[in-house]
């Protein structure tokens, strides 16, 4: 197992490098640049800007310098569009925000989703099942870009209970609506996966054996059914966790959280090359890390799996 983790980590480095080169080349192929705006800049002014940001160098050199600065100085460069700020600083400001509401949403989605799924599977075809399925379908068809403005309308304008947007680490009232809006559709998916997987496990031989031995039902469910039923859920959760903690552009836009979900999309639209690369690498690294974690979890849950 230890060797497996080491091997996977060793592969991660060339994967990230490939990601950097690929993104860099794609980015430079996109028409326009960070300084194309409403008015074309005079050539001398543009030349100064490009020299300052190293855009006048050949592409391979730009990539080399970029990787070098990351490896040696852990410096992701200056933002092109926020000239007062470095990419490190922008990520350090935005990532904790998305990490907070993302992780909370994840917990909420998993706890509620798994509970709904399990309840629905145990009382299969009862009113509880229909209710749980109904809730999860409802949550699924209400996309967050519809839900977010609705939440603001209800909780901010009508009931004046919650601030309509913004962010504060000290005041949880700012977190509630982003968490609701982000977690609902994930919760629905988790509930559906859990339910079908649970139904399958409940019909399997080892459960029948356990019941035949006269084991109490709660032990059958918690000990013998839930654990194997979680396998498909966990493989779904790995990438979901990464996408939740790296933010959602919809949540960031409707609740103006200042998170990096919106920063990422903006950087692509504004051709803010450095910010885009920085967030790409962050998401890439987290994805690799959590996929690895999922694999390790798999081996722990299912003894049949060996690496």
């Amino acid at each position: 197992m230890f060797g497996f983790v080491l091997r996977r980590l060793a592969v991660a480095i060339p994967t990230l490098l490939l990601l950097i080169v690929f993104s860099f080349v794609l980015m430079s192929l996109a028409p326009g640049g960070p300084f194309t705006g409403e008015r074309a800049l005079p050539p001398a002014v543009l030349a100064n800007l490009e020299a300052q940001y190293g855009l006048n160098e050949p592409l391979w050199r730009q990539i080399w310098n970029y990787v070098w600065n990351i490896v040696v100085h852990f410096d992701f460069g200056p933002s092109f569009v926020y000239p007062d700020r470095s990419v490190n600083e922008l990520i350090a400001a935005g990532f904790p925000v998305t990490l907070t509401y993302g992780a909370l949403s994840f917990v909420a989605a998993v706890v509620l989703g798994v509970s709904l799924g399990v309840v629905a599977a145990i009382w299969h075809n009862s009113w509880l099942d229909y209710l749980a399925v109904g809730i999860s379908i409802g949550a699924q068809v209400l996309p967050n870009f519809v839900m977010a403005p609705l939440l603001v309308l209800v909780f901010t304008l009508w009931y004046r209970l919650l601030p309509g947007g913004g962010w504060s680490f000290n005041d949880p009232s700012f977190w509630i609506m982003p968490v609701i809006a982000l977690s609902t559709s994930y919760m629905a998916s988790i509930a559906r996966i859990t339910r079908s997987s649970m139904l399958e496990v409940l019909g399997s031989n080892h459960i029948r054996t356990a019941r035949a031995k006269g084991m109490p039902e709660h032990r059958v469910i918690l000990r013998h059914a839930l654990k194997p039923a979680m396998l498909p859920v966990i493989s779904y959760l790995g990438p979901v966790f990464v996408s939740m903690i790296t933010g959602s552009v919809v949540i960031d836009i409707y609740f103006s959280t200042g998170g990096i979900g919106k920063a990422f999309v903006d950087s692509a639209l504004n051709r803010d090359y450095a910010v885009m690369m920085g967030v790409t690498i962050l998401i890439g690294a987290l994805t690799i890390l959590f996929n690895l974690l999922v694999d390790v979890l798999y081996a722990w849950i299912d003894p049949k799996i060996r690496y």
Partner: protein
Amino acid sequence: MKRFVLTTALAATLAMPAFAVQPAEGETLAENQTYTYWLLDAIKSLDPAKNTDVEGSDALRSLFEGLMTEDAEGNMVPGVAEDYEVSEDGLTYTFTLREANWSDGSPVTADDFVFAWQRVVTPATASEYAWYMELMNVANATQIIAGEMEPAELGVRALDDRTLEVTLTAPTPYFLNTLSHATTYPVPRAVVEEHGDNWTRPGTLVGNGAFTLASHNLGVEIVFQKNPEYWDADNVVMETVRGVTVNDNNVALTRYQAGELDRVQIPAGQFPRLSEQFPDQAVSVPYGCSYAYVFNLSDKGPEALKDQRVREAMALSLNREVMVDQILQGGQRAAYTWTHWAINGFAEPEGGMADMPYEARVERARELLEEAGYGPQNPVRLTLQYNTDENHRLLAIAAQQFWRPLGIEITLNNVEWAVHTDRLQNQDFEIARYAWCADYNEASTFLDWFRTDGYNSGKWSNAEFDELLAEARTADDTTPLYRRAEEILAAEVPATWVYHYAKVDMINPAIRGLPRENLLNTWYAKDLYRVAE
């Protein structure tokens, strides 16, 4: 724009001191002097040399003050400059600075301006607005930007702590009007040198404006506090100003209605409803931008558009009134000139298509197209490109419908902003949606766009037009020159005008002092106050 007759105005002294707006008779000030305004997006920079956008400029006008500032109507009034003299040849301005302090208590000196202006043109600063110093005609700016001269050679000198001398390359009638722009603001040399790029952070930023930076949570909120060191602080009523970012206009409107914001833009199409419901809050005022469809007349442009009759037919048959009244619905005006109708000293030419009934226009368009060999049986096929935006899309669809019956088949091409501007600047389009906003309140800010050496994405060129604008640079009465220039544009149709902007906002009636007469919509937090409700 006020034009100074330089031969006689040897020593013009500014008579009116700048006083902040005061509460009117019978108004009771609220105890809580705060103003919260809406920002669509994060403020990208608080460095006067690096700021490029409107939101940044709004913030900088609170944090800094230039040689000149503006009153509520947008007229130039003295800022840090107390008075000035101009040499007989119009090339040298000598400003006397008032006694004013930075927010850390140290005096604002002429050297701070010298430092700031040199910094803008220094190549290593990478200022996108370095060209502004060229627009101001400050001596040697062009050469320094091009790296041919040292920044120290810029035509600005501190004769002593309170005397600043500026040398220009040519007499520049609009020079004083450029001096309230953020790019010209002084910056504190010691602070910038000590902190580098980080000098614009709360706690570090030192300014000479009426407010200081209390906090800045990028993309969430920026807070300004009244600056007790400001020279005119006694006349500043407002204590706290907050800019709150809400990335979605509709959510912002909801939050305005929940009382979280004092001012917000009204999303397109909602003005009629809101002005009926809240007549004391919904405000529509002219705003100095014009919207057009630009024709590509360069070698890369389509053959059909090179025929003036086709272009004229398209301009004639575009039903702008429907676009403005049915789609935008916010007090915008149908445009028959490139220059915004409310620009100072601008008179629209008479007898153009604006005066023709729409049916007659369509009839004339049909004739023109027929002469050019086109019609419903033999349609012109063209592509109209616009950048992603719901309004642009709706207007483009409307245009498509107006043109189709005449035999002009339009394919709509929606691209993202960066691609749109890139194609415009490389003449990779047929017809493109474009808008221009006034930099200053005079017609040349629009008309210069169509000069042969202007931005002019469609590459139209007309010698008489160029001459008229050159003449206008030093003329005493520019109105007839600009009218003639618009007549040429109307005749040759390098673009078809669509509409002139209006600024459509919900404003909390308790907030007073926001300018409503100012076409550029520049506002200064020092002029605001909140009355008790």
